[in-house]
């Protein structure tokens, strides 16, 4: 037997790709989880169409899942895949542009029929030549027929048989990357507990795929990626939406309040609603409302009643909630609004990522209607920023809008599990003295009013959307409106006292170029800056998580650099905001609106260009 060709790698990106019904998301997730369990750092990127089942075999129906893992820190799912698993010709077509030059393509040769080639709009029978991919390692595996062969004793119909072909591909990839199958088999056993035949058939196919790799080792290389050197501790894999849900749970427990979520399903935010609706064990109340407006309205009702109240949505839903956010601003109720951003405007690109709701978050309401705006920057830190959003809302009696995005929400990474004890305290401003209570009496320092809710004897009072005086009586007095408008703005600005200062990743003393990012672009930006610094370039990064108010030392940091480039997945919304807030600086821009994350290479190109100018 020939020796297996073993290639040691620092990091590798794999893309699983097939029809949206082929189970690629599950395949990718299982592989990622198994990989994380081995101690590799990982970053994942599900990339799927908005139709549940677009026409089979077409490029529009291709669903992909990319994972990058390595033995050092991994901040992005990788610009390009080193290995592509393609279940049909359309997957090749859709993913050619995401491949590293000279990469490996494993494809189901059974699916390369004339019919499927035409469906994928290939003119000839040689898709690789057509796509000019001749110097790639191409491994043809008859996945469909091997799956059928392996299951012929099971007495299953052909449709059910072919449904498990993704397990063959998964087994094969596990062999290639030296991933043991235990975790995956355990998962299958749990998931299909009640259907033993499904368990058996899937595990059989999974092992067939693994064994196929072992037996065909003359043609499939095997890769070795050592575990990463990461901080000691207990880890788990987590995606951004789950982390957001759990951060809210942590805040509820810390503050001693009931968690109430009013929400309406919308891609890509729905998973937060699902995750919290599972947590009846922790007493969460989830209300799936009749529409987006009722989602936030019910949350405002719960906030009025003394709960930690949350609503979750994505861009179009945020638009529908605008008027109600204004009510929460006016009533000065604690409310957390999570917007998992997606491509817009209108329905836009529902399953794709973008950062184009920043202006909507900051300004998208009638009247002077300030809210606190936060943005998470990695899948796992969604936990922390959801927690902080709750803390700020409860301690400052103000609506807080947390921006995440589809890339963070669906992407996952290993996360060192925190303990509740190490999270900062949360002290809701619950009124204590009925004698002195007035609806809009404020703390002098923070300008926050007190919270008194139904059931608290002696605190009966009225609030509402009309402008009020201190006691809560409706007031149309011009002076009062001016004063209150300024107070509401200042109350938000004073949140700067409780948030951390901005930190420079790079040279604390400043230098040539400062790369500025916010929210979910962190992974790509830090990877770009890190690589440029290793190339000797004078580049540093600041990533904003606190958008409104800005951290207090923002201007001080900006002033240390000769050039500033603001990189964001929109046409320049944060840059415009910075020009408004800190007009003394010049802001260069790198923008992308393709529904996709940045790539490290395109960022490096933009930054290099600025360095050379």
């Amino acid at each position, binding site marked *: 037997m020939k020796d297996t060709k073993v290639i040691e790698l620092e990091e590798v990106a794999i893309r699983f790709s097939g029809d949206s019904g082929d189970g690629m998301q599950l395949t990718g997730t299982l592989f990622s989880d198994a990989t994380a369990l081995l101690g590799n750092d990982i970053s994942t990127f599900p990339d799927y169409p908005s139709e549940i089942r677009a026409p089979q075999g077409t490029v529009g129906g291709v669903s992909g899942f990319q994972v990058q893992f390595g033995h050092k820190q991994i901040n992005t799912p990788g610009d390009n895949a080193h290995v592509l698993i393609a279940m049909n010709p359309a997957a090749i077509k859709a993913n050619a542009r995401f491949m590293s030059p000279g990469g490996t393509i494993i494809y189901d040769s059974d699916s390369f029929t004339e019919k499927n080639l035409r469906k994928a709009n290939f003119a000839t029978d040689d898709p690789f030549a057509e796509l000019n991919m001749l110097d790639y390692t191409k491994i043809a595996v008859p996945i469909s027929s091997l799956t059928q062969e392996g299951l012929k004793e099971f007495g299953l119909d052909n449709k059910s048989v072919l449904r498990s072909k993704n397990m063959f591909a998964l087994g094969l990839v596990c062999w290639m990357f030296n991933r043991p199958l235990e975790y995956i088999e355990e998962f299958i056993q749990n998931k299909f507990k009640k259907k033993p035949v499904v368990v058996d058939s899937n595990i059989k196919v999974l092992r067939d795929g693994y064994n196929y790799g072992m037996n065909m080792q003359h043609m499939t290389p095997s890769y070795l990626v050592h575990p990463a050197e990461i*901080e*000691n501790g207990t880890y788990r*894999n987590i995606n951004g939406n789950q982390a957001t849900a759990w951060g809210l*749970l942590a805040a509820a427990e810390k503050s001693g309040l009931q968690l109430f979520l009013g929400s309406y399903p919308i891609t890509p935010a729905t998973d937060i609603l699902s995750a919290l609706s599972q947590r009846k*064990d922790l007493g969460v109340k989830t209300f799936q409302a009749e529409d987006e407006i009722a989602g936030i309205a019910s949350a405002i*009702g*719960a906030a009025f009643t003394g709960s930690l109240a949350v609503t979750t949505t994505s861009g179009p839903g945020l638009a529908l909630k605008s008027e109600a956010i204004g009510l929460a601003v006016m009533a000065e109720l604690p409310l957390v609004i999570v917007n998992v951003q997606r491509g817009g405007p209108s329905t836009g690109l529902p399953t794709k990522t973008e950062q184009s709701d920043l202006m909507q978050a900051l300004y998208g309401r009638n009247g002077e209607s300030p809210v606190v705006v936060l943005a998470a920057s990695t899948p796992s830190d969604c936990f922390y920023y959801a927690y902080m959003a709750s803390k700020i809302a409860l301690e400052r009696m103000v609506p807080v809008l947390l921006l995440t995005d589809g890339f963070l929400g669906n992407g996952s990474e290993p996360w060192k599990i925190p303990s509740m004890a190490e999270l900062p305290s949360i002290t809701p401003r619950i009124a204590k003295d009925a004698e002195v209570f007035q609806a809009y009496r404020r703390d002098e320092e923070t300008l926050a009013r007190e919270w008194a809710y*139904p059931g608290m004897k*002696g605190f009966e009072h009225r609030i509402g959307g009309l402008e009020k005086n201190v006691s809560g009586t409706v007031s149309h007095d011009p002076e009062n409106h001016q004063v209150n408008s300024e107070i509401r703005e200042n109350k938000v600005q004073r949140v700067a006292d409780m948030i951390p200062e901005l930190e420079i990743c790079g040279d604390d003393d400043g230098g040539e170029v400062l790369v500025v990012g916010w929210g979910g672009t962190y992974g790509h930006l830090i990877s770009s800056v890190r690589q440029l610094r290793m190339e000797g370039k004078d580049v540093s990064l600041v990533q904003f998580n606190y958008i409104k108010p800005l951290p207090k030392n923002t201007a001080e940091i900006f002033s240390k650099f000769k050039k500033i480039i603001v990189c964001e997945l929109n046409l320049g919304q944060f840059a415009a905001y910075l020009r408004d807030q800190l007009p003394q600086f010049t802001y260069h821009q790198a923008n992308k609106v393709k529904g996709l994350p940045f790539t490290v290479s395109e960022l490096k190109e933009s930054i290099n260009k600025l360095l050379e100018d």
Partner: protein
Amino acid sequence: MTELNYTIKDFKSDNEVRWCAGCGDFAILNAVQRTMAEMGIPKEQFAVISGIGCSSRFPYYMNTFGFHTIHGRAAAIASGVKAANPELSVWVMSGDGDSMAIGGNHFIHVIRRNIDLNMIVFNNRIYGLTKGQYSPTSDRGFVSKTSPFGTVEDPFVPGQLVIGARGSFFARSIDGNLKLSQSVLKEAEKHKGTSVVEVLQNCVIFNNGIHSEITDPNHRADRQLILEHGKPMLFGAENEKGLIFDKGKLRVVVIGENGVTLDDILVHDAMEEDPTLHLALINMKLPDFPVAFGVIRAVPAPVYDVEMEAQINEIQKTRKITCVDDLLKSGNTWEVTGNVNGSGSSKKCL
């Protein structure tokens, strides 16, 4: 429970009531305050929620917890209030426009869910606060500032929507009849589930007299049927008229004529689950029929906020995860040890 000796004064706030002189809302405010004082519910347990419109100023005049919200959303906000704290007595004050035009979606869904709210719909069949446009309960052909040549659309009948949304409680009253209003409000509060009370209300400025055919003191005995559960459906000055069900339809009869006796008259059963007869009563209109008042429908049905808590309690009995620390450690986790000083990289920086 200690005796709560409230009077109407305990429920009046210091805010000056600013409805137009002669507005029907005054009478409804009075009825609500009197009813609340007599309910035996601690004052701090009341939450009065409103949307936008003349009637939605209501919370400001109540010395209870109150929330004057945004147009059409009172039912949705109140849903959150009650779901978050089922101990409260939650009242929604809304008009025909607020509840059935801009807030129509919330109106039907709160009823469908059967959240335990008391919704008072002030039906004056006009937009008063915006000074006189037709509303979703204005009759076809109604002339208003925005329908100078008459509307070309049919109105909603609030009770029909309630039945259509599988409502468990519907009552009708009229602003001027304090005794009737108080009695239906009490029943509404007692009922577990969404209790919709339509109050025919007069807008003295923009739609004065819209209900006067019904309320006219000279004719009201013949034009109003006050329903009581378990009592025959009788009306008329001498209670000489009644309703029978004949060939699938309601029919007005006179006792003593054509051999009709008291025994032939329908007896009102508000608790009948089948809504057929309730709907027929809701649909009755002048001149062929009297208009039905009182509690038309009050059937027991599962209550959303109660079920929500029950489900949580049930699951918590056997829960494995009792706190967030448990949750964080649940499922697949792994230990990383042996890296010197936990050397590796923190995610945060270079």
